[in-house]
């Protein structure tokens, strides 16, 4: 699938074929996509633990559900528990120097081993590594983790899977997966084959571009070019917005199939 179409097709899928396993290779592709994501100081802030739902003890599965995520957690055959590793700043000094060695950070931009050793590490990264409980540090680390999660989601969609990022009760799963203490839990990425149509009722309503992006200064909208919008429609990045006319009937059918309230 072309990239723009992948972006356009992604939805939060909330009905999965609970009985259908996901091929391990597809999960590997998702994880690889996350690993290759952009990250500050070449630190892989995202850490994740893949769990096959049916291998999670019933008691744990019930305990990790939140009121709004319970059903989706139950339906998804694969759960990827995501964490931001607040210890990822450690080792950044060596990683940055490696980026100098491989030609990613160059003298053209002022980079050198000495700059890393004498300035970047002691003045910027070491304090971050030591003060990783500061909200700003956690926010930037979580941002990087989010980018990686997004790539995993898009890779999943490209593989024909449905994905949904949702909340979970951290303590319940941590007892099972034994995540290190400096890993802060983020979301569980639910994966499976959609039981609903891939359109899932249509693209979700979002505010127009001009309301959320600005040019030059806040309040001056970034104005989209209608010709570009048409190009994105042709590339299936912008698709029919929800609700598609048959969505309510689809939900009724899904409710009947899974025995859910309407």
């Amino acid at each position: 699938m072309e990239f723009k179409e992948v972006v356009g097709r992604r939805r939060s899928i909330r009905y999965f074929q609970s009985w259908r396993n996901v091929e391990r290779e597809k999960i590997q592709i998702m994880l690889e996509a996350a690993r290759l994501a952009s990250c500050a100081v070449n630190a892989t802030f995202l850490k994740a633990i893949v769990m096959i739902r049916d291998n999670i003890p019933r008691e744990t599965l019930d305990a990790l559900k939140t009121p709004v995520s319970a059903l989706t957690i139950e339906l998804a055959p694969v759960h990827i528990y995501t964490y931001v590793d607040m210890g990822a700043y450690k080792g950044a000094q060596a990683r940055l120097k490696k980026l100098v060695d491989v030609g990613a950070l160059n003298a053209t931009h002022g980079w050198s081993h000495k700059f890393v050793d004498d300035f970047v590490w002691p003045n910027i990264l070491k304090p971050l590594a030591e003060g990783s409980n500061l909200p700003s540090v956690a926010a930037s680390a979580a941002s990087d983790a989010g980018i990686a999660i997004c790539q995993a989601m898009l890779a999943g969609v490209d593989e024909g899977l449905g994905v949904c990022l949702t909340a979970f009760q951290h303590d319940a799963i941590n007892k099972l997966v034994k995540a290190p203490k400096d890993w802060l839990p983020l979301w569980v990425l639910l994966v499976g084959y959609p039981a609903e149509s891939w359109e899932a009722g249509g693209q979700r309503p979002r505010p127009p571009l001009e309301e959320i992006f600005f040019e030059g200064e806040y309040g001056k909208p970034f104005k989209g070019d209608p010709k570009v919008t048409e190009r994105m429609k042709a590339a299936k990045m912008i698709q029919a917005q929800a609700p598609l006319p048959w969505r309510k009937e689809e939900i009724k059918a899904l409710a009947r199939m899974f025995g859910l309230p309407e």
Partner: protein
Amino acid sequence: MASINKPLEEYDSVKTWYQGLREQSGIEPNEDKSRLALLAEFCATLELDPDEIVAACLLRKEGKETKISIKGRRSMAERITDFQAQGGAEGRERAKRGNAVRSFLIHNGIQLQSGIQI
């Protein structure tokens, strides 16, 4: 404990339910009266009217936003499970009993989930 002294459709919570079914779920409640009959049976079991059933799931404190009572909702969910179990031998029929009441509560803002009942 109130007795039900008017048609169920006249209770505010039932009106809200019907409106939700029509507007959000695309269902015309009058086409299948069994939903209402099941709610009536549930009300009789609990000896509460529909508005009281909703109120039992809420925490209302003067000057504060109304919240869903975790304890109240959990207790109601258990009562629904019991009510569902009293249904016929067929699983789908039993699920329908519980889901009618769940739907009533959901459209009245009491978020709850039943889990898969295949």
